């Protein structure tokens, strides 16, 4: 039977008040425990290159044939363990060459300067400022990185739904229909491979930027590709854009690509 006397209630209040005072005591103990092992700190490397939005300018006038693009794609695919699959439907590519009318549909007139028509155009992920692939991704495996504007992929999270591939208007993404490992001629042990069932694409060489190096394709391009911060008016890319007439792929779609072409 409940004893609702005044005395009982006062007793309860007293015990409750006592219980409340134990919290600071517990906290003090908990703190001591934490102090025993100091916290670790996570930071960016001192050599890391920083930008608000990385961008690239491609001077297409410096490329004459498919063969001129070969070393650039080769350099990229080699360090990123991109497999070489013969079957066109299974092909994986991060950077490759295409014709003007494929790279810039809608901008190709019926009759074109012969020189432009024959010229190969280097295409890769545009690292759009308004990326549709990011909006399509249901797991946030692909995302726009706040720190440097790279449209990045977390392969751990990719579930292989390929919505991003459908959303990307540039065909910049490839899907691993097969286990890629047997198709990598020479594995770069410094970089992971991918596994069957994930999408992959160019990462603007984020792993190289982190240690103060420019992307591999830029490095071997002999000045035909220029890399820099789009929001730094003094950057090399901005200087080039200021001086030359540049176009971007499918600009009317509003994805705001960060790769500019001098034609």
């Amino acid at each position, binding site marked *: 039977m409940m004893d609702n006397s005044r005395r009982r209630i006062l007793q309860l209040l007293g015990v409750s008040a006592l219980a409340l005072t134990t919290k600071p005591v517990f906290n003090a103990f908990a703190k001591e425990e934490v102090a025993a092992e100091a916290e670790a700190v996570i930071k960016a*490397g001192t050599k*890391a290159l920083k930008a608000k939005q990385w961008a690239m300018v491609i001077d297409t006038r410096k490329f004459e044939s498919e063969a001129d693009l070969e070393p650039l794609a080769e350099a990229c695919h080699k360090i990123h363990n991109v497999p070489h699959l013969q079957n066109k439907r299974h092909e994986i590519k991060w950077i490759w060459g295409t014709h003007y009318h494929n790279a810039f549909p809608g901008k190709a007139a019926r009759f074109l300067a012969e020189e432009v028509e024959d010229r190969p155009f280097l295409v890769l992920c545009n690292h759009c400022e308004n990326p549709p692939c990011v909006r399509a991704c249901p797991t946030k495996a692909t995302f726009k990185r706040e720190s440097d504007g790279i449209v990045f992929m*977390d*392969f751990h999270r990719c579930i292989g739904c390929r919505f991003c591939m459908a959303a990307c208007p540039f065909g910049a993404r490839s899907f691993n229909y097969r286990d890629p490992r047997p198709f990598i001629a020479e594995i770069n042990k410094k970089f992971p491979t991918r596994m069957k069932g994930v999408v992959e694409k160019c990462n603007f060489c984020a792993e190289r930027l982190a240690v103060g190096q420019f992307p591999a394709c830029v490095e071997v391009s002999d000045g035909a590709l220029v890399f820099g911060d789009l929001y730094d008016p003094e950057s090399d890319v901005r200087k080039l854009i200021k001086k030359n007439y540049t176009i971007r792929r499918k600009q009317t779609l509003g994805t705001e690509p960060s790769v500019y072409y001098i034609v």
Partner: protein
Amino acid sequence: MNNKTLIVMGVVIFLIIVLFPFWYMRGKATPLPDPVLTPQAKAAQKCVRSTEYMRADHMRLLEIWRESVVREGKRIYVNPEGKEFNMSLSNTCLDCHSNKAEFCDSCHNYASVRPYCWSCHIENPKEKT
């Protein structure tokens, strides 16, 4: 209660089947895993964090590393002693622990966990060519 014998027999057979593994393995225990350290790891004395922390929480540490490298682009880990590490499974962890079979697998097999790290990360940056 006409089926008494049948029921008793059934219960006995059931018990035999259920208890068979215990009887079969009686007195035998799978030996505790004994992960082998490479000479390099031994020389280093201490991992990124204390042995106890690594033993209990290495998977959480790797998760923190992954999130910060992939999502924030921060790649340097400064441990409580102030030593800096490049946050990379392939290039930092496996550089020292270059014996996956004797180190990683020994415990993972014992605990029957199958992490899929190695479907992408290359097991051994040193030995494999």
